[in-house]
């Protein structure tokens, strides 16, 4: 149960898309999408663009290696994302 009622701040369209997800893919981590979309201009867009740029594979680290490093950091932080 989310601490804040993020649904209330989402557009009808956003809620419809989330509803579709819930039907098609009940295990999808929808709360994270809600958080991105709740503050799309200030969180979702800049953060996802940054994530995309940071997680890109490079000659140093492949995309997979970066994802594993991220998962490792999350596990230390007690979080599954």
């Amino acid at each position, binding site marked *: *149960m*989310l*601490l*804040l*009622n*993020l649904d209330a*701040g989402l*557009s009808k*369209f956003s809620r419809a*898309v989330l509803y579709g997800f819930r039907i098609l*893919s009940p*295990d*999808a*981590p929808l*709360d*994270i999408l809600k*958080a*991105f*979309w709740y*503050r*799309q201009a*200030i*969180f*979702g*867009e*800049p*953060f*996802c*663009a*940054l*994530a*995309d*740029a*940071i997680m*890109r*594979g*490079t*000659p*140093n*680290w*492949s*995309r*997979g*290696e*970066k*994802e*594993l*490093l*991220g*998962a*490792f*950091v*999350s*596990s*230390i*932080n*007690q*979080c*599954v*994302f």
Partner: protein
Amino acid sequence: MGNDVIAKVLRGHLRSELGARSAVFDFAEKLTRFPETVTVDDIVVLQSEGLSETAISEAILVVALFSVITRMADSLRFETPSDLSTGADLLRRFGYRGMAGPWSLFTSDPGGLKTPGDGEGNPTLPDAMRRWLESVASLGAAAEASAPEVAGPVVGKVMCNPSDVSELDVEGLKSHGCTEETVFDLILSAAANASLVRLKAGYDALHRSFRQPIIVVSAGLEEPATMRGLPTYSRSIAR
């Protein structure tokens, strides 16, 4: 499966996969748990394992990125999906960009895990970092303007023990006139600040080690710009 088990499994797996480069996991752990203790010596260890300046810089960025999202997830109590592979599928299908907004799911290039430019460095990074830092600065300014004194302890929790943020904290903020959106912004601002603390700790050590400004994101990362606009209470925690 407990998170400590996940950490152990990942660490074991990565040691065998990455060989000497797995030293980066000890570094990532230190930067995540005790950013204030990271020094030039930690960078020297990584260098001695053959990691380049850019390689270390990229690892610092990954640590910083994930420390935002874990704080949002833990403090807002994101529901944990029972099957984690669905999240991975989502990421593979839409990529990070696709998750930015409801429309971007349909419009973004479904490059997924294999994005164009893979393996060629990060041409979009400086710009993306600048935009994110601008967002964080405006968030911090907004939160500071609207949040009452009670916000301080909440910010501290988000930064240090995000799963301790409780309904009582939210109620307390609301009773002082905060809207749900302000509470969200405050939590996001604190999470971003915790991430910047790690980014700064890592980059400070890296700068000192290589004695020159670092490539990718140095444009947006001079200290004043990083900390400007963040709430004063979180700024003092950051110190």
